[in-house]
């Protein structure tokens, strides 16, 4: 079951359900929330107990048997009323606290009554409301509301006993539906669970009764970002433009180069060699700005980048609690790793290892500070460059990557480890490094400026990263790459030694080129690790490029462990 798509509130509701079920693999088809959007504790607990005491598959089949009809909502709720009573009786002997939970829920029901407006009263389903009132009044030992003979009959039938099994309960419900609702067409209507507990719809649902168990499919939602690839900025197939015009476009889209033109050309001369001959580099700190964009293309990109920035921020905020928890966890892990491998410094002390050159101080000065004591080095002398693949292949995961990168960056920053976060993409022959957060910046908010577009000439990016690594003043430097290990560029690999003809920069050729660049960087003393975010089919690519220096993650929760492990391995090798 994918657990990483939940918001904090959803996660809490599910935890209540899983706790009651005693089964953390249970995918509940129902979840209950109160009108304030908080989990409805007791009802969620009952949903969990239904998995513990009944056959969930049979129940689900029963719920499906009338879905799609106009009765669905009422049937769902009265079935849960029956389940509630039966489950309460089954569980109570093993869980005395259930009585208090039930009474608290019943009291909350009547407290909510007093705060409802006339319109809300009118919006209610009278039958269901009467049945709920009767049930909770009974629980609290209060006088029952005035019920019609039909309501009385249904209410009595819904007091399902604790001895009922799944078949017995379903038979009871079928008889109620047939006798009291004249419904007998249990033939499995086209079934769609379509409610999502978010936004307006959630508020609409909560009007129906003061707290409600409703169907949900959020557990099975596909990635909400899938299919957003229409805005990809791919340039493959376009003819090469004039270099000066391309440079203008790049400057419009990503801002001024960090390096003067002469320096930049020198860098290209040194780095854009062999297969990368004719390619260009662009290092920029600028944020695309639609107002100052010089071309329609740059304007479009700047607007999309701004939209993506807002999406990245919103995505992080939606899972803020969990993300903050990940940052704390990662920070602890990094600090521990650094502490374990930091070189201790010696200071003069009154006990410890005797410092023979200071012994004279005892005789002459009567000082007892003639020993040495080890103290850990307070400040780790390492820096990290986090390199993010920002090609269009990442379009479906931009928010996730931005969140992941932000968490890594913040954790390192909180450990006082200088960190720079760069996004790289290749666009019109220019491999662009967008500095989202520099080593010296005091916060990582710029990381949310991440957006994907263009291609990824990974090999050249690896070579170019060396320049940014040198921007750090520390003695040990790590390059940490978040990648799908799938290099792909519109510009071919140029002929070079051992390659008489140009080749497409993709597939095995792109991988070999990237692997070579990684190998050269390593030979130069740079430590490189990768966090692999790709598909199963691309694991082999990651192995070829990074050998064993990568960790694969499937969900954001795993990031702290993955990055912690990579840092631990790398720091251990340094000591």
């Amino acid at each position: 079951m994918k657990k990483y798509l939940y918001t904090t509130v959803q996660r809490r509701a599910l935890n209540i359900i899983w706790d009651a079920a005693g089964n953390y693999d249970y995918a509940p088809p129902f979840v209950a929330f109160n009108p304030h959007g908080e989990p409805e504790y007791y009802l969620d607990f009952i949903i969990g107990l239904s998995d513990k005491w009944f056959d969930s598959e049979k129940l689900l089949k029963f719920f499906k048997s009338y879905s799609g009809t106009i009765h669905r909502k009422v049937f769902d709720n009265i079935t849960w009323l029956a389940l509630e009573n039966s489950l309460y009786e089954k569980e109570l002997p093993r869980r005395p606290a259930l009585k208090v939970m039930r009474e608290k829920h019943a009291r909350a029901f009547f407290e909510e009554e007093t705060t409802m407006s006339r319109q809300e009263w009118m919006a209610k389903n009278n039958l269901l409301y009467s049945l709920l009132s009767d049930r909770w009044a009974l629980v609290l030992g209060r006088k029952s509301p005035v019920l019609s003979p039909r309501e009385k009959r249904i209410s009595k039938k819904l007091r399902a006993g604790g001895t009922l099994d799944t078949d017995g309960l379903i038979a009871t419900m079928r008889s109620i539906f047939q006798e009291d609702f004249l419904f007998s067409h249990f033939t499995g209507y086209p079934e769609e669970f379509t409610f999502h507990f978010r936004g307006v719809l959630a508020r609409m649902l909560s009007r129906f009764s003061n707290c409600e168990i409703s169907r949900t499919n959020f557990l099975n939602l596909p990635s909400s970002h899938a299919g957003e690839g229409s805005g990809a900025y791919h340039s493959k197939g376009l003819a090469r433009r004039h270099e000066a015009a391309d440079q203008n476009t790049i400057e419009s889209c990503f801002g001024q180069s960090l390096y003067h033109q002469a320096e930049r050309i020198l860098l290209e001369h040194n780095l854009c060699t062999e297969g990368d001959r004719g390619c260009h580099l662009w290092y920029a700190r600028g944020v695309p700005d639609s107002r100052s964009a010089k071309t329609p293309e740059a304007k479009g990109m700047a607007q999309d980048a701004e939209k993506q920035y807002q999406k990245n921020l919103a995505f992080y905020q939606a899972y803020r609690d969990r993300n903050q928890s990940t940052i704390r966890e990662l920070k602890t892990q990094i600090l521990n790793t650094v502490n374990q491998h930091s070189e201790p410094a010696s200071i003069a002390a009154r006990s410890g290892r005797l410092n023979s050159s200071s012994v004279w101080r005892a005789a002459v000065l009567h000082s007892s500070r003639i020993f040495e004591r080890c103290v850990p080095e307070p400040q780790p002398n390492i820096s990290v460059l986090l390199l993010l693949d920002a090609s269009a292949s990442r379009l479906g995961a931009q928010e996730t990557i931005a969140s992941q990168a932000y968490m890594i960056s913040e954790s390192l920053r909180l450990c006082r480890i200088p960190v720079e976060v760069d996004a790289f993409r290749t666009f019109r022959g220019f491999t662009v490094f967008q500095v989202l957060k520099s080593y010296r910046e005091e916060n990582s908010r710029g990381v949310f400026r991440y957006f994907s577009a263009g291609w990824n000439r990974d090999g050249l990016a690896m070579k170019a990263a060396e320049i940014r690594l040198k921007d750090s003043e520390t003695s040990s430097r790590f390059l940490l790459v978040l990648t799908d290990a799938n290099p792909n560029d519109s510009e071919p690999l140029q002929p070079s030694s051992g390659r008489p003809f140009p080749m497409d920069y993709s597939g095995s050729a792109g991988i070999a080129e990237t692997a070579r660049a990684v190998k050269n960087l390593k030979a130069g003393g740079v430590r490189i690790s990768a966090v692999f975010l790709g598909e199963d089919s691309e694991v082999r690519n990651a192995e070829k490029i990074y050998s064993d220096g990568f960790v694969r993650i499937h969900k954001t929760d795993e990031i702290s462990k993955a990055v912690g492990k990579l840092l631990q391995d790398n720091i251990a090798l340094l000591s």
Partner: protein
Amino acid sequence: MADFLTEEHISKQLLEGIAAYKKKYPSNADAVRPKYPYYGRKIWEEAISAVLSGANLLLEGPKATGKNVLAENLAYVFNRPSWDISFHINIDASYLIGTDTFDGSKVVFRKGPVVLCAENGGFGILDEINMAKNEALVVLHEILDYRHTISIPGYGSIDVNPATRFLATMNYGYAGTRELNEALASRFVIISMPQISMENLERLLLYTFPSLKPKWMEQFALLFEDLRKKVEAAEISQHAVDLRGFLDAIRLMQNGLAPSEALEMGITNKSFDSCERRLIDDVIQSRIPETLESRSLFG
């Protein structure tokens, strides 16, 4: 304690072995009676066998498996004084073996806990041994292997008393821990400590709180089990599965504090994440009613 071991159905041969050991190595000092007994026949038998055969013991396992409790129990059963040495990242050889110090007129050697334990034939409990850097642990190699000596530069060497045993504990999952180096691990026999079973947890609760009503004893044991399941499902961190905190909370209730407040102090507040605290609270609420008063628990 002999009665306790008999109740635990420890084999007669091992009980005789313990008696023979105590006769061979009589102790002048009384061993400290542990606060809690360790429950679990299989682990008891493995540990006693290891001690009788002269091996050093490494107890490996997650939080709340009773590693330290077993170590303290062993020292008591074999009637040996114990030295509890907590390991940490900055521990070094001089902390374990001893350091030079100046007494006003001359430099003298101040013995560390490992030397004191080795001289007195004690049981050295090396707590969270994998918290230390491996380099710091190299000094233990000659003590733990067949040489049984401690070399102190400038002061010669000390022979380890044959009654001495070292009992190390470790938990791979704790933050700050690391893999134990192979050379050190090979000098121990290793027991993988299982989680305390529901039955043994109830026995522990009964031993510690004899006046706790059976109905609530079961609920407390189930609460601990629920929290453990949540940790195993990776929904919360290990902070909440703290047996010490759990027992402390019940002790607070015994002293009159409301159960909800006591559990908050002993368990919930061990987590520093508000989201996680909420999840822990939800579990507690499902077992221990908010309105429950401490006086209803005992009697």
